[in-house]
């Protein structure tokens, strides 16, 4: 895992001191709210419906046990004993008090964490595959490049006041688990002539105008990547619209200008930057890569799960084994998804005690490593197969042993109207109702991604849910629009809206109707919901829902 150098440590410390002073001045009345708001947002501090909300960065979703213990400690000491893990691979605290925030930031700095670049019109924290460095299907571990992007983008003076926020996602695997085509820039590892480089996608996004990113370059070598990214950012910074915040994202620029012209302009800018100071020397890449070297795997780890007997005896454990293990590149090892979607609970929430227990699991069983996934779960990336049973039992003790990864109850839900000042409708209770309704049958439905947002900003990724649910407000009541057929993977698709909204109470029934169509018309049990939808088209689903 990356360790701060003196430069990193100094700038995080300075930023914490600056913010501490800004808070003092705000409380003393020397700064007005209008002056203070942009300053607090630059430090991840929002004001929500009930209280402040602090968003803490977890760069590319990687944590060690010390950091997780610290997050637990902050939840216990300054908040209400829990934190909310988000689709941006971050954690949010919902109840901090303004005077405590400088102390929280100091505590975070002790473990090399901060809240910088979690808000505002800058390059946000880069996100990646939660199985990076562990996945069996990886061409290259994306974390060294993600870290280099973090260093390049952190407090980048030229890109601190972009037209709008800017999100970069990167994956080194063939299967995209980081939704790269729905980010402002998406990077996918690519092999060409025996060399590994990056396919670059630009102009993806969700929100009010969902767009699938377009490929701007099919191969950028490592050494040129920063110069190429900088070229894209320059073109965006120059031409991105600043007059209308709904048209300010790069997706609109790409859409309105056309990818060919954007490519030309980026290439022209790149020609100027290429072979300059941004060229990444191989020895620097190698140096950063050593931080992410594979842990000392046991070469002779037993490659079979001791599971069969236990699984026969325990259906819950069998389900956990089937759903929550992910194939590791090292024989004898596996990655484990710890679902933060226990049926009836708030998606993504973890208590301080749960965070502490998970930190201990990482220390004991996973070379001190943890990941946050964009699906709002946690991951133990490097676990010996022979330890799976012991880990499972420990997860049962803390109520986080749900074997539902990728199933209908593994829902992404934004905070919605229960917390969010921008919301039109609640998301969390809808997620809870769906999970409760379908949990006993979810195995039959197989892979099914339900995603819920409380407004069109789409923080809950509803556009790319196999079934997406969008909360709207009509005459003071909550209504939910249902979309079908979205896909966040490399086969990226935005879901189709099926028709008028339904009330919150009607959502589980509506899903039941959609699922009945799927169960009746699927070719066989191996045809997933999304494939069936692609084959059948929206008509039968629409018919079932609206007659």
């Amino acid at each position, binding site marked *: 895992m990356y360790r701060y150098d003196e430069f990193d440590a100094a700038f995080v410390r300075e930023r914490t001191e600056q913010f501490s002073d800004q808070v003092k001045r705000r409380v003393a*009345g020397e700064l007005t709210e209008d002056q203070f708001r942009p300053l607090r947002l630059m430090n991840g501090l929002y004001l929500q419906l009930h209280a402040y909300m602090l968003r803490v960065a977890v760069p590319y979703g990687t944590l060690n046990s010390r950091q997780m213990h610290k997050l637990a400690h902050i939840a216990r000491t300054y908040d209400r004993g829990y934190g909310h893990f988000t689709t941006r691979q971050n954690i949010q605290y919902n109840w901090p008090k303004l005077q405590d925030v400088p102390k929280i930031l100091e505590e975070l700095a002790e473990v090399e964490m901060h809240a910088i670049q979690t808000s505002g019109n800058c390059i946000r924290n880069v996100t990646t595959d939660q199985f990076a460095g562990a996945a069996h299907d990886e061409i290259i571990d994306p974390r060294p490049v993600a870290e280099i992007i973090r260093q390049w983008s952190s407090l980048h003076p030229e890109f601190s006041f972009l037209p709008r926020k800017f999100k970069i996602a990167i994956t080194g695997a063939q299967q995209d688990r980081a939704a790269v085509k729905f980010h402002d820039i998406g990077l996918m590892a690519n092999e060409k002539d025996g060399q590994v480089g990056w396919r670059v996608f630009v102009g993806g996004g969700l929100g009010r105008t969902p767009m699938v990113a377009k490929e701007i370059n099919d191969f950028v070598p490592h050494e040129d990547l920063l110069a190429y990214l900088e070229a894209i950012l320059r073109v965006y910074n120059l031409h991105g619209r600043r007059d209308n915040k709904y048209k300010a994202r790069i997706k609109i620029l790409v859409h309105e200008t056309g990818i060919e012209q954007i490519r030309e302009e980026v290439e022209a800018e790149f020609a100027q930057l290429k072979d300059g100071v941004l060229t990444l020397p191989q020895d620097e890449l190698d140096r950063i890569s050593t931080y992410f070297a594979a842990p000392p795997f046991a070469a002779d780890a037993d490659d079979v799960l001791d599971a069969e007997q236990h699984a026969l005896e325990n259906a819950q454990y069998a389900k956990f084994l089937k759903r929550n293990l992910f194939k590791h590149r090292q024989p004898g090892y596996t990655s484990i998804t710890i679902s933060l979607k226990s049926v009836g609970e708030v998606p993504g929430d973890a208590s301080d005690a749960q965070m502490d227990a998970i930190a201990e699991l990482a220390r004991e069983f996973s070379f001190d490593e943890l990941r946050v996934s964009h699906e709002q779960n946690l991951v133990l990336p490097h676990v010996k197969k022979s330890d799976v049973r012991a880990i499972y039992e420990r997860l049962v003790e803390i109520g986080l042993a749900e074997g539902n990864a990728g199933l209908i109850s593994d829902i992404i839900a934004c905070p919605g109207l229960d917390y969010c000042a921008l919301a039109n409708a609640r998301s969390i209770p809808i997620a809870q109702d769906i999970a409760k309704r379908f949990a006993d049958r979810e195995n039959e439905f197989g892979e099914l991604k339900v995603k819920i947002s409380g407004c069109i900003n789409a923080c809950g990724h509803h556009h790319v849910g196999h079934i997406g649910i969008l909360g709207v407000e009509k005459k003071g009541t909550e209504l939910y629009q249902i979309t079908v057929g979205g896909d966040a993977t490399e086969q990226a698709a935005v879901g189709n809206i099926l028709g008028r909204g339904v009330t919150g109470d009607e959502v589980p029934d509506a899903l039941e109707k959609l699922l009945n169509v799927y169960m009746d018309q699927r070719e066989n049990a191996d045809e997933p919901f999304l494939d069936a939808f692609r084959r059948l088209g929206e008509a039968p689903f629409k018919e079932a829902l609206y007659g």
Partner: protein
Amino acid sequence: MKVITGNELLSGAVVYFYGKDRWGMDLQQAQIFEDKAPEVDELLAAAAKKDKVVSLEAIPVEKHDNQLVQTNRLREQIRANGPTVGTYGRQHLSEADYVSL
């Protein structure tokens, strides 16, 4: 009918204007204004100037049985009662449940 509401600076807690520079967490104690009462804008401007309550707004309310004051939007009900999920309740002001500003 309207009441004036916002979030208290230090805690972020939802507060209502009780009258005479007093703000507190209890909607029932909020001063009620007629819809077009001219002093609402003046009070909002004065509160904005003091800058100790932020996200200021005048929100519509209804009175039932001459007693209970209710907001008619779900958003305001959630602000007045806390999230509908979990058992967290509301954010509390740092000291008592009202502040003089």
